[in-house]
């Protein structure tokens, strides 16, 4: 049953009416779509390819071409009933709601999604960062009434240092410990390719060994125009363990403490992650060389971004909501946590 909407009600449309959290994810009733739903739905708008944002089995998916390619690579061609590609900065209409994708600077193809109706604009930024990343388009600030921000590293203790310096730490260690295999744990979508690309930019041109789980995504990045230089599988072909002495091996973080790691001579465990800022966390995992390298905004980036965009309201999701909400309160900005379940503390 449908009723005509009286113009008076349109003028006072509340943000919660345009987008609000449901058990399946952030839902837009007028457009009848979800953003990054955590369950299979009829129509999904997906910000980026990380598994907790991009799930298989939806009726239709609207996402950037790169994100669609990533989803197809991870879940197979039948990952959705229907796939529509969104172009950065170009508005489309979904059931009468205006939708525009903008770069988020998080990983290849990552987007913020601006949802607009009756003069009210909400930007769901997904995961984002402001630091430079040679593997994806940089974040674009979009003016809006409500800004939905992530909060993975939303504590004042998280300040990511210059990424180039962290790569330099790795290069220094390679010169200092030439006999040890440098095992770099890096999340397989985005972080791994960023580490490899940054090593290349820093002049490292030796072959880099990769764990089997990274192969597909590294090839995908290559075909999307992110060149990664010579990559070799990290398998022991001969009995010559020495081939890995002084080499860089990139692998998913979990494999660092796995039996898999035993094939390398005297491995030196490194881990590229924003969590490495906390020494205790590095120690717990047995990491000897912490590389503070994150694809998420740190405390300063989060607060600077909110200041820059100047929304009248901030919704916080995905991490340490309480601290960022507190900061907004201190600045006199209306803010509340969006308690959406189903997103993980990406094991980054």
């Amino acid at each position, binding site marked *: 049953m449908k009723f005509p909407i009286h113009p008076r009600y349109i003028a006072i449309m509340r943000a919660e009416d345009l987008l609000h959290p449901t058990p399946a994810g952030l839902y837009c009733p007028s457009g009848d779509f979800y953003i990054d739903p955590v369950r299979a739905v009829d129509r999904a708008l997906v910000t980026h390819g990380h598994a907790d944002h991009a799930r298989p089995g939806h009726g239709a998916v609207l996402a950037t071409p790169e994100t669609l390619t990533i989803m197809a690579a991870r879940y197979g061609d039948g990952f959705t009933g229907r796939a529509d590609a969104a172009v950065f900065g170009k508005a489309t209409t979904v059931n009468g709601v205006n939708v525009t994708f903008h770069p988020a600077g998080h990983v290849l193809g990552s987007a913020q999604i601006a949802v607009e109706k009756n003069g009210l604009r909400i930007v769901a930024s997904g995961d984002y960062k402001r630091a430079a990343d040679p593997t994806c388009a940089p974040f674009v600030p979009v003016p809006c009434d409500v800004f939905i921000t992530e909060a993975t590293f939303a*504590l*004042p*203790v*998280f*300040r990511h240092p210059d990424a180039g310096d962290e790569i330099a*730490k790795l290069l220094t260690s390679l010169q*200092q*410990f030439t006999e040890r295999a440098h095992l770099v744990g890096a999340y397989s979508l985005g972080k791994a390719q960023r580490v490899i690309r940054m090593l290349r930019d820093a002049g490292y041109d030796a072959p880099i060994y990769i764990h089997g789980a990274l192969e597909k995504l590294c090839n995908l990045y290559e075909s999307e125009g992110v060149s990664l230089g010579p990559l070799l599988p990290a398998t022991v072909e001969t009995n010559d363990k020495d081939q890995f002495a002084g080499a860089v091996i990139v692998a998913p973080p979990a494999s*660092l*403490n*796995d*039996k*898999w*790691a*035993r094939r390398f001579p*005297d*491995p030196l*465990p490194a881990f590229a992650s924003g969590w490495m*800022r*906390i*020494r*205790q966390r*590095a*120690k*717990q*995992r*047995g*990491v*000897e*060389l*912490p590389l503070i390298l994150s694809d998420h905004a740190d405390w300063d980036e989060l607060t600077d971004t909110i200041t820059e965009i100047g929304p009248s309201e901030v919704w916080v999701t995905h991490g*340490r909501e*309480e*601290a960022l909400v*507190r*900061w907004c309160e*201190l600045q006199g900005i209306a803010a509340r946590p969006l308690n959406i379940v189903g997103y993980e503390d990406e094991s980054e």
Partner: protein
Amino acid sequence: MNRFAALLDRLVLTPQRNGKLRLLVDYFRDTPDPDRGYALAGITRDLEIASVKPAMIRTLVEERLDQVLFAYSYDYVGDLAETVSLVWPEAETRANRVPTVADVVETLHQASRSDGPGLVMGGLRIGVSARLAKQALAQFGGKDIVEIEELWHGLEPPYLDLFAWLEDRGDKPAPNHSAPFRPVMLAHPLMEKAERADADIAGKLAIAPEEFAAEWKWDGIRVQAAAEGGERRLYSRTGDDISDAFPDVLDALDFEGAIDGELLVMRPDTERDVAPFGDLQQRLNRKTVSNKLLASHPAFIRAYDLLTADGNDLRGEPFQVRRNRLEAFIARHGGERLDLSPLVPFASLDDLAAHRESPPHAAIEGLMLKRWDSLYQPGRPKGPWFKWKRDPFLIDVVLLYAQRGHGKRSSFYSDYTFGVWRPGDNGQELVPVGKAYFGFTDEELKRLDKYVRDNTVERFGPVRSVRAEPDHGLVLEVAFEGLNRSTRHKSGVAMRFPRIHRIRDDKPPGEADTLEALTALLD
């Protein structure tokens, strides 16, 4: 500051000694004066930063950061000093440049209230002993570590003259006070573990009474007490100055000379009846000591050797001569806080073995055997001195938790927490009594790792709990050197030097030892 912070990070997280050495040597080479000197002081804890109290740091931070945000941060990080250093406002560094270690130190010295927590390390353990730092300096300058140890106590941060000498740009710095530390002579175990099994080697090791002196090895800490030219100092065997913690011992050094001996605590109101090692531990690592503790835990020195006497260096004399001098010296200067470690007369190796099995006091760890003709040589020369420790205690325990190791062992569960039985509310229960991470062979490590992976009950980060029930679990035979009472442990006891001796596949967990049997060793 950046480079120093990076060095600290690496030192904290690098488990191998050689790795740490390399990091330190490279740092000394690549860092200019005075930064490297202040960094060295920070590492060896010679740098005194006017008592920065946790409450004060907190106040300073809260002036700059919202209390609630600080509370969230502290809650997440768990360590106050680390939290503070992470949230410290970085305005200056963003605008301009990163301050040097020297900048920070100078600021700290100027400010009545310290205004930068860069060097406040709080709960952080850098894992570098003063000895390792000196080893790195020796390696960096191509010198012998003995030379560095000898002159160390005359030096002050930022050690410009030391670095000048190490880089062959200056003369060797001279010790600036008259009671210097003299590098200590150490003993080898009489037989290494592998040799013990080999009857041929054991048989060839003739310890003849005419060649060797034997004395008790007391269960305290080895020290050097020097009283020369009006100065009195007490050093640990690695050359750390521990004088401040032992004013009672210092008072008794009423002589001109340097003694090598064992620092012990006596039971109050006895004539040097040696208290358990745990009592001595109460007195260690203190900057000051209360009168109450001085009365309840009186310390004294039991002398083994005499290095200098009345201005004469005796280290080039044979032990026989030094021992005679020592006996006369203690007869003259000994007293309530200083006595002589007696020799143990013996006629044969069998005779000696019998002494070793039944020492006259619980605070005896074993025997020291010294060649009558041995000179006092720094380090651990092979041949002149041996230690022959009492056999360790053995108990059967049940494996409870395992944690992943570090470095080469990071893919193995190699740190084991184990327990023994005690009566609980619902029958017998296991209570943790200790932790061990060595003693096993590579082969045993693989078996233990497999057992842990196959029998995991729960995971908490790098730790796994394993099945431990009366008829399903893993029994380990653990060797240890002694037992202390401990209020920090649930079981009320703490083991000294526990290690995995054997995997007891043959024994059901229900038959492992009890807490009662273990605590019986305390008395």
